[in-house]
């Protein structure tokens, strides 16, 4: 039987880029404060105006990878322990997670800037504005 190695050292933030929309939204939600799975799911749907809807499988698959990569961590404190279901676990953004989120935001900003600078694109309006 193979033995599992001890926790690997954290990778450089830029190695995680680009992030998938789901992961970007999860990190963004956790940047606002600690949250449990359902709260993350609701917040992502609200923030993306319903465009990104995470099901439990996708949500916890992403959370699992984010935990392994040390971009988020589980937190012990519960905001209202007596009102809460014990099955709920809360997650928080780590420093590395914050750095990755900041880098991704910068990357997206530069992309948007490049698109806006493009003469052809400037003349085209989105379908809903036409």
């Amino acid at each position, binding site marked *: 039987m193979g033995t599992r190695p001890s926790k690997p050292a954290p990778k450089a933030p830029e190695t995680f880029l680009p992030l998938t929309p789901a992961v970007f939204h999860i990190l963004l939600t956790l940047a606002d404060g600690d949250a449990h799975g359902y709260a993350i799911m609701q917040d992502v749907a609200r923030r993306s105006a319903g465009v990104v809807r995470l099901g439990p499988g996708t949500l916890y698959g992403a*959370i699992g990878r984010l935990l392994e990569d040390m971009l988020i961590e589980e937190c012990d404190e519960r905001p209202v322990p007596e009102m809460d279901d014990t099955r709920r676990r809360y997650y928080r953004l780590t420093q590395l997670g914050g750095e990755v989120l900041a880098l991704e935001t910068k990357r997206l900003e530069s992309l948007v800037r490049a698109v806006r600078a493009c003469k052809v694109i400037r003349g085209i309006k989105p379908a809903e504005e036409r």
Partner: protein
Amino acid sequence: MTAKTIPCFYRLYSALLLLYPARFRVRFGEEMQQVFQDCCEMELQRDSIIGLCRVWLRTLTDFSGSLGREWRRELVLIEPEIDYTGLADSFMVTVVVGTILLGWGWVAAAIVLNITIPHIFEYYASLATILAVVVTISMAALIGIISALIVSRSGRPERNRIRV
């Protein structure tokens, strides 16, 4: 929607969770159940049957996608707890030993039959057949040994996670 139907939904979802890899299920199963329950309760508060159907549809769509992803991750991308090299070795050894035993057993049976019942060889097997069997057994054994050697030397796949 009756009070009995809703716990059935939860049980059905719990049963679906059994299809995920054990490691993932043990770590996140309860939380996933809780999230699913929260989604259903939200729709029940709104008294929306269509909403409940939408939750199921979304959950099933998500389930079908994430199930494959998690199994792929479990079997290929992270170091599996099953020692596949050892498993492959054992399989090869079983194939080699099995082939030799079966093949030589067949040859021995043919010889014994030839001794005990004269001339039966003419009907059931000729010398050429026995030779062909011997060559086949030896080739199978040789292929098995070479495969086992290749597998044991190739090692495991690199630890390489998919992008989060």
